[in-house]
């Protein structure tokens, strides 16, 4: 087992927890969206750590492809969430 692999992987777990905590506790919608994005980045960190095989060895391409897909899906979900927030604030009589 490589030191770098578990260092980065466990950091990913920590980032997921930080993001999850903020997503549950933050009241501002925009910061919640940022928190969910940070959480996603933690998952990506775990996946890329799983793919790592040490210096000079080709890493596993399957988790890389998963993360690429994940990044694009995350940005489209973020865009939709932001449009929802904007519409929510544009509604007359909201708090």
């Amino acid at each position: 087992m490589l030191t770098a692999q578990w260092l980065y992987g466990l950091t990913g777990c920590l980032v997921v927890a930080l993001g999850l905590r903020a997503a549950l506790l933050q009241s501002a919608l925009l910061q919640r969206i940022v928190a969910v994005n940070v959480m996603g980045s933690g998952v990506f960190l775990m996946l890329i750590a799983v793919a790592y095989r040490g210096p000079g060895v080709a890493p596993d391409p399957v988790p890389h492809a998963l993360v690429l897909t994940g990044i694009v899906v995350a940005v489209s979900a973020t865009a939709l969430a932001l449009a929802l927030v904007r519409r929510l604030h544009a509604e007359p009589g909201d708090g």
Partner: protein
Amino acid sequence: MNTPSLLAFDGLLLISIVSLAWAALATRDARRSVILFMAFGLVLALAWGRLLAPDVALAEAAIGAGLSGALLLAAVGGQQGARSGSAQNAGHADPQPAVRWAVTLLCAGVAGILGWALLESFDSSARDTLAQAVAANLASSGVSNPVTAVLLNFRAYDTLLELAVLLTAVLGIFALGQARPGYRFAGPVFDSLARWLVPLLILTAGHLLWVGAHAPGGAFQAGATLAAAAVVLRLAGHSHIGLPAGSVLRLVMVAGVAVFLLVGVTLLALGRPFLGYPPAWAGTLILVIESAAMLSIAATLVLAFLGGRPQALWQATGAAESVPPAATATPAALPEDSSGAATHGVCKEEQSRC
């Protein structure tokens, strides 16, 4: 690089990642939070480089840090224009300390379980099966970059559905309202910077698309770079930002899904599995699909940045094609209606290009 200095680099990088994540989440100022999140994304791109994932590093820098940041900053600007930043939190009380502790404990538990599962997976012997399968079949995939081979050939289903997710998201954004009003025209310094930057970004996008077959790059990175060019134009005050108007815009939006499906269904009709390319044609088919996907991804990301239906562009349809006003009034429904026609048009376009 020798091991101790590499370990020191790892330590610095990981401490930066955790502290930037913490700082982005702890602040109550939305703008500060977004800017720290962008910095977090850029440091993360360094980590992808360190873990030998250059494809992911490119995508993270262009999309994760770049376009997500632009989207979030535009949203912060819009909110602060509409009302003062603090008024938005006025209705919500902070959670009780007991609740905060309970949630913190819960999240620590989640981190613990994730960490345990991760360390278990590092020890398992079956984890190299997929990597070996990719390596064994790479020669027949039509490309030599294993990540592109997985995305566009071995797991093409995933990418097709991902493009469908993008299309769904942009339709949802359209349904929620109109685009934000444009920006003021920029000063001469930014304008001349944009004149240099936009052609360079377009060239880079073309390069990334082409090089993706055998080196880091591909449709996602290229599409994001193309979208960045449009965002620069938008910030410089240009209204049309390179997006086509009317039905061409709808064609571009569905191009990725449409070309992908057309290739899949054609192969099915020829007696092959869905999206099971013949090895001799795989390289060409992947390039055709990636070109269409790049255009769709770029258009989607730009439309997401606009934050709604670009009214001027939809109205241009009415003038150009004499669509009745009733049809332009419900533009969100139109891309679905025209997707059948789109499939043929885009396909011809793509084939003539190759």
